[in-house]
C-alpha cells in the first residue's frame, strides 16, 4: 500500500514533466544565502542576508504554500535543526533546547500564552505569511527573555497593492481550512485583512492509554493591519490579531488505577495589538516608537461523570512600550539604542486567588553596534539589561563576526548570552491535585509562606533540606557559541555547516521539598540544574536542470545534564538490569536530556516548471528520544522508555488554472506513521485538496 502510493506520485511527476516542454527559468536568489534579500530579525533592523554575521535561516512564503502547510507547527517540523515536541501542544525545540527557550514573534512582537512553557504553534495560521525568519543562538541582547535558543519571527504579508485572495481546503479527518485576504490601498493608507478558519474532527488516538480520544478543534484567526504614511519621513502602522480556538475533549484522570472520564471544553483566545510610529529625523537617524498589547485567555471546563464541575482559568496580559533609535554614524558604523518598559499580569485559578492579579514590571535598555565597511569583515556587538521586579536582573551581551573570503565563501563566529525569566507558574503556582495523589506544587514566591502556614496547622510531615534553599528565583541563562561556514561554489549549489554549543545554567526545576503528614509530596521550584546541548548542522541545496531542486539537512545533537554526568562519573548513579537487580550506570548508557534525538535528517525534492506547476516530496527522519524514566534512577539512560525513531513522507503538487484560479493537492504522512503515545500531534495519512483564487499573479 505504501509502495503503491509512492509509485503513483512519481508517475504523476514524470508524466507531467514530459508534458511540459517549457523552458525553465532560474531565479538567481532562490538559494538565498548570498542574496540581497532583506532580513530583519538578526539586527532588529533591515539588513541584507549577505551582511548578517549570525546563523540564520529563512522560509519563504512560496515554499510554505508549495508544501501545503496550514499551521506554523507543520512548517517548522520540516526545517533543519528544529524538532516539534508534543505535550501541551506543538512546541518548538531549537538545537535541543526546550520550547520555553525560543521566542516566537509575529512581525517582531512576542506571542504569549504558554502552557507549562510550551507555546502551541498550531495556534498560528500561515495563510498570510511573507516569510519566516529564524535566528539561531542566544538573542536576548535584542529580545530579552526567552530568546535563549533563538528567535522565530513570522513576517506577515503586507502587500501595498489592491489584491484579493482566498482559498479553501478539505482534507482527511474532516479537516477544513479557509483563508481570505484582502489588501487595499487608498492614497496614503494601506490596509490588509486576513481571516482564517480551521476545524478538524481530530485524530489523536492513543493506544493502551487513559486518553483514548480524538480532539475536535475549531480555530478562527482574524488579522487587520493598517499603515498610514504621513510623509516620506513619518508613518504609522497599526495591527490587530485575534485568534480563538475551541477544543472539545474527553479527559481521563487516573486515580490510583481507576480512570475517571470527564467531558472537557477548552477555549483559548489570544489578542495582539500594536501601534508603531516610524520617524526619520534625517538620513542618519531614525526612530521607532512601539506600543504593544497582548492578552491570552484560556478557559477549561470539565464535567466529570459524577457531575462535579471543574474550571481552570488562566489570563495573561502583556503591555510594552519600546523606543528604538538607529544612528548611522558613518558608512561603516551603525548603532541602535533602545529602551522599553513591560508590565505583565496574570490571573489564574491555579494561583492562590483568581481575582488577585500577579504582576511583574520590567525595564530594559539595549544597545547594538555594527561595523561593516563593505569589504571582508562584518562585526556586531551589543548588550541588553533587564531590570525585573520579581526576580534577579539579567545582563545579556552578544558578539558576532563574519569573514568573507570571497563572494562564495564566508565564515561566521558568534557568542552570546541569553536568558529566560522565571514564568508566573514558577513564581506563583498554588496547586493541589486532588485527583491524583493530592500532591501540591507551590511557586517559589508562595512556597515558604504557604508551607509555613500549613506547618502551623500541623499538616506538614517533614521538610527536605532544599526547602530552606528556596529563595528569589534567578533567570535561567544560556551561553551559546556558533561557528559556521557558508559556501556557494556556483549558482546551483550551496552548503552550510554550523557547529553549536549551548551551556545552560541555573535551570529551574521542580523539586520535592517536603511531605504532608499523609505522605503526599510537596514540590516547589529551584534554580538547580546545569545542562548543555552541542552538535552540528549541515544543510545543502542543489539546483538541477529543468526546474528540479533539492535540499538536504542533517542535525547531530548531544545533550546532557552536567550534574548528572558528574554523578555518573563519580559512580553514584545506578540502574536496573533486566532481571531487576541493580548495577552501576556507565557513562555510555547515558542519553542526555529527554525529548532530544541524536540524529535528524530531512530531504526535499522539488519540481517546478515555467507554467507554475509544482510537485515536491519531503522526508523527515528523527532518531529515538527518551520519554520517561522507568528504571529506578533519575537520569535518562538506555534502559528507559524511548519514542522510536521514525520517518514521515509528505507530498504536494499544485497547478495554476485560468483566470487567477489554482489548485493544490497533497498527502501528508504518506507512510501513515503513527505513535499515539509519544507523538500525539502527528496525524495519520492525510489527503487534502485546495482550491485557490487570487486577483494577483
Amino acid at each position, binding site marked *: 500500500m505504501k509502495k503503491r502510493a509512492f509509485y503513483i506520485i512519481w508517475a504523476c511527476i514524470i508524466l507531467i514533466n514530459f508534458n511540459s516542454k517549457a523552458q525553465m527559468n532560474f531565479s538567481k536568489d532562490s538559494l538565498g544565502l548570498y542574496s540581497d534579500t532583506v532580513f530583519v530579525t538578526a539586527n532588529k533592523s533591515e539588513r541584507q542576508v549577505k551582511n548578517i554575521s549570525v546563523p540564520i535561516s529563512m522560509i519563504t512564503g512560496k515554499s510554505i504554500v508549495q508544501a501545503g502547510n496550514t499551521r506554523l507547527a507543520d512548517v517548522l517540523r520540516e526545517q533543519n535543526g528544529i524538532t516539534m515536541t508534543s505535550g501541551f501542544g506543538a512546541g518548538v525545540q531549537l538545537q535541543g533546547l526546550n520550547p520555553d527557550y525560543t521566542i516566537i514573534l509575529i512581525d517582531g512582537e512576542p506571542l504569549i500564552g504558554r502552557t507549562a512553557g510550551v507555546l502551541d504553534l498550531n495556534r498560528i495560521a500561515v495563510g498570510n505569511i511573507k516569510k519566516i525568519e529564524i535566528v539561531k543562538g542566544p538573542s536576548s541582547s535584542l529580545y530579552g527573555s526567552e530568546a535563549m535558543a533563538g528567535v522565530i519571527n513570522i513576517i506577515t504579508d503586507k502587500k501595498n497593492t489592491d489584491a484579493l485572495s482566498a482559498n479553501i481546503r478539505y482534507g482527511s479527518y474532516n479537516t477544513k481550512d479557509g483563508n481570505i485576504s484582502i489588501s487595499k490601498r487608498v492614497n496614503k493608507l494601506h490596509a490588509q485583512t486576513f481571516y482564517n478558519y480551521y476545524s478538524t474532527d481530530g485524530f489523536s488516538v492513543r493506544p493502551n492509554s487513559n486518553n483514548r480520544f480524538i480532539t475536535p478543534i475549531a480555530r478562527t484567526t482574524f488579522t487587520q493591519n493598517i499603515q498610514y504614511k504621513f510623509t516620506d519621513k513619518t508613518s504609522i502602522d497599526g495591527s490587530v490579531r485575534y485568534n480563538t480556538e475551541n477544543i472539545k475533549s474527553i479527559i481521563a484522570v487516573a486515580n490510583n*488505577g481507576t480512570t475517571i472520564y470527564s467531558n472537557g471544553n477548552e477555549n483559548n483566545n489570544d489578542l495582539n495589538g500594536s501601534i508603531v510610529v516610524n520617524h526619520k529625523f534625517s538620513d542618519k537617524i531614525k526612530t521607532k516608537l512601539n506600543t504593544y498589547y497582548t492578552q491570552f485567555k484560556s478557559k477549561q471546563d470539565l464535567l466529570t461523570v459524577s457531575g462535579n464541575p471543574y474550571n481552570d482559568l488562566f489570563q495573561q496580559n502583556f503591555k510594552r512600550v519600546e523606543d528604538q533609535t538607529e544612528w548611522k554614524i558613518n558608512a561603516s558604523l551603525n548603532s541602535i539604542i533602545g529602551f522599553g518598559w513591560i508590565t505583565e499580569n496574570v490571573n489564574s485559578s491555579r494561583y492562590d486567588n483568581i481575582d488577585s492579579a500577579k504582576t511583574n514590571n520590567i525595564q530594559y535598555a539595549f544597545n547594538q553596534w555594527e561595523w561593516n565597511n563593505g569589504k571582508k569583515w562584518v562585526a556586531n556587538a551589543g548588550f541588553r539589561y533587564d531590570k525585573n521586579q520579581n526576580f534577579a536582573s539579567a545582563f545579556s551581551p552578544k558578539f558576532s563576526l563574519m569573514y568573507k573570503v570571497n563572494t562564495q565563501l564566508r565564515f561566521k563566529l558568534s557568542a552570546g548570552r541569553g536568558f529566560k525569566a522565571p514564568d508566573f507558574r514558577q513564581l506563583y503556582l498554588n496547586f493541589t491535585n486532588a485527583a491524583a495523589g493530592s500532591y501540591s506544587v507551590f511557586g517559589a514566591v508562595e512556597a515558604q509562606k504557604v508551607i509555613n502556614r500549613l506547618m502551623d496547622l500541623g499538616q506538614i510531615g517533614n521538610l527536605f533540606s532544599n526547602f530552606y534553599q528556596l529563595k528569589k528565583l534567578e533567570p535561567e541563562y544560556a551561553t551559546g557559541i556558533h561557528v559556521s561556514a557558508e559556501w556557494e561554489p556556483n549558482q546551483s549549489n550551496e552548503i552550510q555547516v554550523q557547529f553549536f554549543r549551548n551551556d545552560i545554567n541555573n535551570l529551574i526545576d521542580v523539586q520535592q521539598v517536603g511531605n504532608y503528614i499523609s505522605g503526599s509530596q510537596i514540590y516547589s521550584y529551584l534554580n538547580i540544574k546545569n545542562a548543555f546541548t552541542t552538535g552540528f548542522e549541515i544543510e545543502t541545496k542543489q539546483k538541477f536542470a529543468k526546474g528540479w531542486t533539492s535540499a538536504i539537512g542533517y542535525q547531530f545533537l548531544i545533550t546532557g545534564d552536567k550534574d548528572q554526568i558528574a554523578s555518573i562519573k563519580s559512580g553514584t548513579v*545506578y540502574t536496573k538490569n533486566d532481571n531487576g537487580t541493580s548495577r552501576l550506570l556507565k557513562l555510555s548508557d547515558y542519553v542526555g536530556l529527554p525529548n532530544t534525538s541524536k540524529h535528524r535528517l530531512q530531504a526535499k525534492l522539488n519540481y517546478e516548471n515555467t507554467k507554475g506547476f509544482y510537485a515536491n516530496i519531503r522526508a523527515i527522519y528523527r532518531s529515538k528520544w527518551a520519554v520517561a524514566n522507568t528504571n529506578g534512577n533519575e537520569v535518562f539512560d538506555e534502559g528507559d522508555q524511548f519514542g522510536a525513531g521514525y520517518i514521515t513522507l509528505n507530498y504536494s503538487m499544485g497547478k495554476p488554472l485560468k483566470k487567477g484560479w489554482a489548485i493544490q493537492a497533497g498527502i501528508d504522512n504518506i507512510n501513515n506513521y503513527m505513535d499515539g503515545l509519544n507523538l500525539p500531534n502527528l496525524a495519520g495519512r492525510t489527503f487534502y485538496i485546495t482550491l485557490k483564487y487570487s486577483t494577483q499573479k
Partner: protein
Amino acid sequence: MKKAIWKSLVVVMTSVFLFSCSKSTTTVVAPLSATTVKDLPADTIIGITPQGQPFGTGKFTFYSLEKNTIIANSDSATTKWDLAFNGTKILTNSGNSGSGLGGAFIQIGLFEELKTISSDSVFKTDNGPSSYAVTFGSGRGWYTYDPIKNLVTPLAGRVLVIRTASGKYAKVEIIAYYKGGATLAATAPDAEKISKQRYYTFRYIFQPNGTRNF
C-alpha cells in the same frame, strides 16, 4: 570468567595456607548465597471504592528472613517475623511495629558490594505512622511512584539493610512490585496495573552467625 575463578581460588588457597600457619584459627565459611522471594502478596487489590480508590483487606503479610517463610497474621505480636509488607509500606519488627530487636536503614549502593555493615551505621526503628525504619514514600525509600503512569518502580542501587527480630543481620534488594517479578510497562492497561500490583519480588542474604559480614 574461568580464569577469574582460578585466580581467586589461588588467592583463597594461598591466604588459607598463610593464615593457617599463623596462630589464630580461621574457619573458612562457605559464602552465603542470595535467596529470591518471588511474588509475595502484600495486601493485593480486592476491590475499588466508588471514589476510584483500589483497596485490599488492609492486612500485612509477615515474613521471616531467617526461616524464609510467610508467618501467620496470628503471630504478628511475636518475634517470629522480620519484615511485614502492605502495599508499598514495609515494617520491621521494631519500635511500635513489633516486640523484636529489629531495625533497618537504606544504603545507596550495590547489593553484591555490601560485604560488611559498617560499625557506625545507625539502624532506625519503626515509629509509625510518622516514621518507619524502611522510609515510606515515593523517592524516599526503596521506590518511586509515578502518579501519571500509575506505576511503582523500585529505585536502582538501594539496599535495605535489615536487623532481624532476633538481632541478626540481613540485606535485601527489592526487584519488583508487580506479579511476575518485573515492573510493568508504562503502556500496560490500567486493569493490569491494578490486579498485578502489591506482589513483591526481592532477593536477600541473611547472616545466621550474628556478624555484620555477608
